């Protein structure tokens, strides 16, 4: 991973609101980040923090309310149907639940043929060959799986088919929306290894969405933490886990259940977590985390902090570090 490599995706001041009967849900509220070519960017947050909304906006399922998303210099702040076809081919997504993202009435062959047919990347004659190649790529023997239906295979295998479908059009950027959260650890390990292997071979860039910080530690090159539609902290993985600055990050890191004493030593001093995540319909004024924050100050309930660049590549949004340039 070359640190000088180009930025492939930039998100600037992205906002996505949903109007409901109960009020406006500020699912994503003014976030900015960028992803460099060939890296794995981890987007971490608890449920309801807006991770999936970000993913869906990038892929084009939602149109942003405000802000700009650009991919390889081209603006993609449009819905899927208005995007040029070559862009659709380049950005693909793997969904969270493999059980509901594959059509149960089609065979695996039919499922994998759809993107190839739509994008006309291969002639009708070569299509079957490509499907076989894709299945081999995700380590499923084609002769065994080609004519099976998704119901007949296990959860891990379904997710592998979903990955193969995402790769069918030779994309350069793949959004992985919690691809392993519904699976057991031994299956998760297999899928993660496969994904890392594919990234190296096909030169892919990943936006990896998850709630599992220990998983991020092992695969991401950069991590961003989201809380209630806003990004709290962005840093390179090593820096992030060694020197977390935001109180929420510390709370999150100290809450992770671990399996060895070595890991226990790496966790920050225990921050007792309390309170619940407020509803995104009425976000508290000021910093959205102040209701649960152990280091709350006067100002936190009044003014929303801005992003501060603490050191190279490490950005924090918290009043504690406001005005401290380089630490």
């Amino acid at each position, binding site marked *: 991973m070359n640190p000088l490599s180009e930025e492939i995706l930039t998100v600037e001041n992205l906002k996505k609101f949903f109007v409901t009967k109960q009020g406006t849900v500020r699912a994503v509220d003014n976030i900015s980040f960028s992803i460099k070519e060939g890296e794995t960017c981890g987007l971490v947050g*608890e449920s309801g923090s807006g991770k999936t909304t970000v993913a869906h906006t990038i892929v084009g399922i939602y149109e942003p309310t405000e802000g700009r998303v650009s991919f390889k210099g081209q603006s993609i702040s449009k819905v899927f149907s208005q995007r040029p076809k070559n862009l659709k081919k380049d950005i693909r997504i793997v969904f969270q639940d493999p059980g509901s993202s594959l059509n149960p009435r089609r065979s695996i062959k039919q499922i994998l043929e759809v993107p190839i047919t739509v994008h006309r990347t291969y002639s009708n004659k070569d299509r079957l060959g490509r499907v076989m190649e894709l299945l081999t790529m995700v380590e499923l023997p084609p002769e065994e799986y080609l004519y099976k239906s998704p119901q007949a295979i296990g959860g891990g295998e379904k997710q592998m088919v979903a990955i193969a479908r995402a790769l069918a059009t030779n994309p350069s950027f793949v959004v992985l929306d919690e691809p392993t959260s519904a699976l057991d650890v031994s*299956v*998760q390990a297999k899928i993660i290894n496969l994904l890392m292997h594919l990234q190296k071979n096909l030169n892919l860039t990943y936006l990896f969405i998850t709630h599992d910080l220990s998983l991020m530690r092992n695969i991401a090159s950069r991590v961003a933490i989201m809380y209630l539609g806003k990004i709290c902290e962005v840093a390179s993985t090593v820096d992030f886990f060694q020197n977390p600055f935001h109180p929420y990050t510390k709370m999150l890191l100290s809450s*992770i259940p671990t399996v060895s004493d070595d890991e226990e030593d790496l966790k920050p001093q225990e921050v007792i977590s309390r309170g619940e995540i407020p509803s995104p319909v009425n976000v508290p004024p000021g910093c959205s985390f102040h209701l649960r924050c152990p280091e709350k100050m006067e100002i936190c309930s009044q003014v929303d902090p801005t992003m501060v660049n603490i050191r190279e590549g490490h950005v924090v949004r918290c009043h504690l570090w406001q005005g401290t340039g380089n630490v």
Partner: protein
Amino acid sequence: MIPLLEIRDLHVRFKIFEGELKVLNGVDMVIGEGEKVGLVGETGCGKTTTMKSVLHVLPIPPAKISGGEILYRGKDILKMKPGEIRRLRKGEMSAIFQDPLAALNPVFTVGHQLRDVIKYSLITQGRENLSKEEISAQSITVLKETGMPDSERILSNYPIQLSGGMRQRVCISEALSAAAKLLMADEPTTNLDVTIQAQILRQLNELVEKRRISILLISHSLGVVRKVTERVYIMYAGNVVETARTKDLFADPLHPYTKALLKSVPKLTGEGISQGIRGRIPNYLNPPSGCRFHPRCDHAMPMCEGERPAAFIVGDNHTVACFLYKR
């Protein structure tokens, strides 16, 4: 240690159209009085079936307990009359089920359900003449104990109006107000966020210690079990493969399955992720003969296929069901 619950060689089968699913294949387990025990295994290994057999809530048929005994204070639950079992469930042992929304009745308020539980469990304990006010007061107390904010208001809410963490707290307070001796918690924190999970586990732990209740914590998360329990059972495909003190097991796992499972967990130390376990969990219709793990095991020997390994004692309180440790 005085054993409170003893499961001996429990076999459970399920009758389906194609034949018989041989799910539990001789489970042995002991829970001492006031002991915190964990039960870990992957999806479909029979953890919940074990718990349901103890509570006598398995659907019979299709399920069939084909062998073994479950001794509660020396008395076999499987041979008890329905009335005796009901009394046991009302006053002695209770359970927290996996999905709190499915466990709560959607058409009654939380208060209604909680008061019912308290009323009937107290009647069983021989305190019949309780006034309505006393029961209400008691319900607020138990709810407060779990760290629920604003308990008085919550009592008049319906389950659907509460967040996941709050629902889980309601289930915990229901279970705790009935359990005098044994609490079985089936994945109590699986669909919660890590910060909320940390809160719930902390409170559960405090309450159990304060009242000296034995707890059986069922989970697929090794980290959660390590945090809460004193002793742990590892289960694979209907068999207990290893049991030890939690500290010993995590420091020195012996069974090939336990080792592989622990290696698959992503760690905060960032040492990368192992290859996972090859193959997948066996089909219970025709499970492998002998040791059920042998088709996936790297150390499989010819004898593994022939007979089921007994639990070999390898240390203080540490047994492993694997021929590698046969003396």
